[in-house]
C-alpha cells in the first residue's frame, strides 16, 4: 500500500518547458528604470512593476507609493538558451544593481508567471 507521499509523487505530471524571458528585480533610487530594446541582448522589456503595480508602460497614478525595488519583465525576442540569460545578467550588471532574477518559462505552452496589475 503506497503512502500518501508516494501517491502524491506518482501523480506528478511532466510538462514541456520553454524558456521565454526573465523577471529581474532592480534596486534603484533614481526612479523607474529605462532600457533600450536589445540593450542587453535578445530581450525586450515588456513591463515594469513596483509593489505589484505596473508603472511602465502607461499611466502611473501620482498617488502611487513606490519603493526602490522594481520588477522588470524582459521577454526573449527569439528562442533562447540558458547561457543567453547568463550573458544578459552579466551585461546588465554593469549598469544596474539587482537583487534577484527569475527565469520565465512556459509550461506546455502556458505562461508560468503572473501579469502585473
Amino acid at each position, binding site marked *: 500500500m503506497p503512502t500518501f507521499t508516494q501517491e502524491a509523487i506518482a501523480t506528478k505530471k511532466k510538462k514541456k518547458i520553454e524558456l521565454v524571458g526573465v523577471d529581474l528585480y532592480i534596486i534603484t533610487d533614481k526612479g523607474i528604470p529605462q532600457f533600450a530594446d536589445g540593450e542587453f541582448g535578445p530581450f525586450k522589456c515588456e513591463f515594469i512593476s513596483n*509593489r*505589484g503595480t505596473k508603472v511602465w508602460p502607461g499611466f502611473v497614478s501620482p498617488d*502611487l*507609493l513606490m519603493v526602490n525595488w522594481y520588477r522588470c519583465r524582459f521577454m526573449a525576442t527569439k528562442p533562447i538558451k540558458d547561457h543567453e540569460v547568463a550573458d544578459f545578467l552579466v551585461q546588465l550588471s554593469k549598469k544596474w544593481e539587482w537583487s534577484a532574477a527569475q527565469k520565465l518559462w512556459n509550461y506546455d505552452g502556458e505562461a508560468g508567471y*503572473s501579469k502585473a*496589475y
Partner: protein
Amino acid sequence: MAKHVVTMIPGEGTGPEICEAVRMVIDASGVDIKWEYEDIGLDCLEKYGTLLPEKTIQSIAKNKVALKGPTTTPIGTGHKSANVTLRKVFDLYANVRPVRLIPALKRPWDKLDIINFRENTEDSYAAIEHMVSDEVAQCLKVITWPGSYRIADFALKWARDNGRKKVLCVHKANIMKMTDGLFLEAFREAAKKYPDIETGDIIVDNCAMQLVRNPGQFDCLVLPNLYGDILTDLCAGLMGGLGFAPGANVGDNCAIFEAVHGSAPKYAGMKKVNPSAVLISGVMMLRWLGEKEAADRIEKAMYAVLDEGKTVTYDVGGTAKTDEYAQAIIDKMRAGTK
C-alpha cells in the same frame, strides 16, 4: 452648486436596486449631494472593452469620493478585477472594516465593536507569482517599510480621531521574521507618535481564536493584506454575516465606500436583498465628508427599524422589499427629527 459631488457606482446584479435604496435614504437625510452615476463590471466589457471604464476612473479622480455597489469578478477569464484595479490606480491602501453588534441579529456576544484596518496593496497580493519548476509554484510576499508604516499611522490616527483607545498589530513575526517583522517594526515606530493610544501586538492565529472566544476584548486591529482579508470576514461572521458589513477603501487623496458582499445576481431585479451593508458604508462616507449629524441620524433610524423588525428584509426574518425597508428608515428618520 451641490455641497458634495459623489461618484455613484451601482455595480452589478442586485447592486443597482441596493444603491437606489441607499441614495433614497441619504438624500432624505438632507445632505446636499450631487450623484454622478458611473459604470463598472461585466456590462462594460461589451460597451467599453474593459471592466473598469476610463470615464469611471476620471469621475472618481475628480470627485475624490465614491459609493460603490457590489460587482462580479469573472473567474479565469483573464480580465483583471475591477475592484483590485481601483485600489491600485488610486493607491487605496487602507481597507477599513468596522464590525459591531446589531441587536436585531441576536448574536451571542456581550460586546462587539472592532475596527479592522487591512493593508490593501501589498503582501502576497502584489501579483508576483511564478511556476519555478513544473512541480513548484511560488508567490512573493512583498512587505515594505513605507507601505507598513502608513497603514499603521492611518489606523492610529483614525483611532485617535474617533475616540478609540487601543490598536493592536496582527502578525506572524515569530515565523516570518523579515516580512511580518518589518510590518511590526513599522507599526511600533508609528505608534511612538500616538502616546495617548494604547498599542500592542498579537500573533494572527491567536488573534483568530481570541476573536471567536471573546471578541469584546478587541478595539482596533491593523493587519497585513492576507491576514486582513481572512480575519475581516471572520469578524463579519461574528456580527451575523456580510449583509451588515460595511467597508471603505481609503488612500491619501481618495476614498471609495462599498459593502464587502457580492452582487447576488440570482436575486437581481427582485428587490429582495438587504441594502444595509451599502447603507452603513454610505454612513461611513457621510462621516468622511464631515456630515456626522446626518450619518448618526441614518444609523439610529436603521437600528430602530431593525429593532422593531416589522419592515425588514427576508435575511432578518421579514418580508419587506429593499425599497420598503429604505422607506421605513426614511420614515423613522423623519419621525425622529420632528
